[in-house]
């Protein structure tokens, strides 16, 4: 007996045969090799049975030879389903349109929220976002990705230190840290102020506490600057010393600048290839041509499609190849020397706190070695050297 599970897909019809000799009709059908099933008696002179859709012409022929009358009751299976689907295509189109709408709407920006920002900062951010095209109702993946937005915002808005950008579903959240937030007065425990490093005191401003040094004193690292013990000697009061002690400190730095150096530079040529990614498989859809760059950097961005709150395994991927060139820079000894001085200063600035000030520099040593220039520079810097040291009250 052959397997009949495919009957449903190819479609079948339920047939009613009326008349005497319905058994003979069935015999005739089977003898012609037509598959008949679910034969049932429906009254004294009629029989109901199922037959494959494609056997209907043969059935007609067979019926003509017999003295039965055949009526078709109903059809079932694939072809009929499709027919009905087409008949009700409005519903199908409607449900598809619904899904498409839902899909498009899930990929749109619906809300932009800025947290922890002062009104003016928030205004600036919103204006900047408007310029970048991030507005309510935009399609997410035509916009920059989160990292780019973050970089652009931090670059363009000077008054904030950091902006955290997060895309949660259809809402952008901006977490802002303002630069000049009034710091809450820290309650400090009783402490002395001691020197951070060896220095010569140039300026001092003591708010609280008893100063133990004078201007122009030389102090070593860890030396007591301002004492937190005030009052009479026999009944001292312990407080938290506070103040700014500016001192001249010294730094020595060594820099080396090679005379010849090679750089990789982007020359502005780039080529983007677009993909649709299904899981791990990427199918290129645009930009098939290989640009044939000798050296290049590849940059891949992936945007996943969303459906409601879920991420779909389908993503839109772009791979951008940026052409690179090697550039050789040549310095003369003098140029290298100037460059080294600049570099050393910039390096030092990075290490120092913001309020520090470089007041002098002295070049100690210039060594023009083979192919490079080595500089040793001594700097004089004025900075706050005070740091707290808690007073531990024992006894």
């Amino acid at each position, binding site marked *: *007996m052959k397997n*009949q599970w495919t009957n449903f897909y190819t479609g079948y019809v339920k047939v009613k045969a009326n008349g005497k000799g*319905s*058994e*003979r009709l*069935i*015999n005739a059908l*089977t*003898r012609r*090799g037509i*598959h*008949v*099933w*679910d*034969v*049932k*008696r429906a009254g004294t002179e009629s*029989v109901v*049975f199922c037959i494959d859709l494609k056997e209907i012409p043969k059935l007609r022929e067979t019926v003509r030879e017999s003295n039965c009358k055949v009526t078709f009751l109903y059809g079932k299976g694939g072809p009929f389903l499709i027919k009905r689907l087409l008949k009700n295509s409005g519903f199908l189109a409607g449900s598809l349109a619904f899904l498409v709408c839902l899909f498009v709407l899930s990929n749109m920006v619906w809300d932009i929220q800025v947290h922890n920002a002062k009104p003016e900062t928030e205004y600036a951010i919103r204006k900047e976002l408007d310029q970048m095209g991030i507005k309510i109702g935009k399609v997410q993946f035509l916009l920059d990705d989160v990292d780019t937005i973050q970089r652009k915002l931090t670059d363009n808005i000077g008054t904030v230190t950091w902006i955290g950008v997060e895309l949660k579903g259809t809402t952008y959240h901006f977490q802002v840290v303002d630069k000049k937030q009034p710091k809450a007065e820290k309650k400090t425990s009783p402490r002395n102020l001691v020197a951070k490093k060896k220095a010569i005191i140039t300026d001092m401003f003591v708010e609280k506490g008893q100063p133990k040094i004078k201007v122009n004193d030389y102090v070593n690292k860890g030396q007591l600057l301002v004492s937190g013990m005030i009052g009479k000697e026999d009944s001292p009061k312990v407080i938290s010393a506070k103040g700014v002690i500016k001192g001249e400190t010294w730094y020595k730095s060594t820099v080396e600048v090679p005379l010849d150096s090679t750089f990789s530079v982007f020359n502005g040529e780039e080529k983007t290839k677009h993909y649709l990614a299904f899981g791990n498989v990427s199918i290129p859809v645009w930009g098939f041509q290989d640009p044939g760059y000798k050296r290049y950097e590849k940059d891949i961005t992936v945007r996943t499609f969303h459906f409601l709150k879920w991420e779909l395994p389908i993503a839109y991927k772009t791979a951008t190849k940026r052409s690179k060139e090697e550039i050789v820079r040549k310095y003369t000894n003098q140029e290298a020397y100037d460059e080294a001085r600049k570099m050393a200063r910039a390096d030092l600035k990075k290490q120092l706190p913001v309020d520090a000030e470089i007041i002098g520099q002295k070049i100690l040593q210039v060594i023009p070695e083979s192919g490079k220039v080595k500089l040793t520079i001594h700097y004089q810097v004025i900075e706050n050297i005070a740091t707290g040291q808690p007073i531990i009250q024992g006894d």
Partner: protein
Amino acid sequence: MASKWGQNIKKLLVRTIDLPQDVMMDLPRITMIGQLHIYIENHRGLLAFTDTEVRLMLKKGQLLIRGNEFVIRTILPEEIMLQGKIDQVFFIKE
């Protein structure tokens, strides 16, 4: 006389080399699953079919099946699968 001869030879063959009898002698092979199903191979056509009675042509004679609520699940030129409540199976010699 000749057919009788042939029959005898077939019987002998069946007995000696152990061939299945339904193949050799065109007998119906009937498989029943409780009272629910009856599966008949080697029939020669449907003679009568009602809810309570099915009559099948065999090579020799007829097969009569009685029961209730008969439905022919499938029917092929030489096979038939009947479903329902089967009460009796008769062989009718003609």
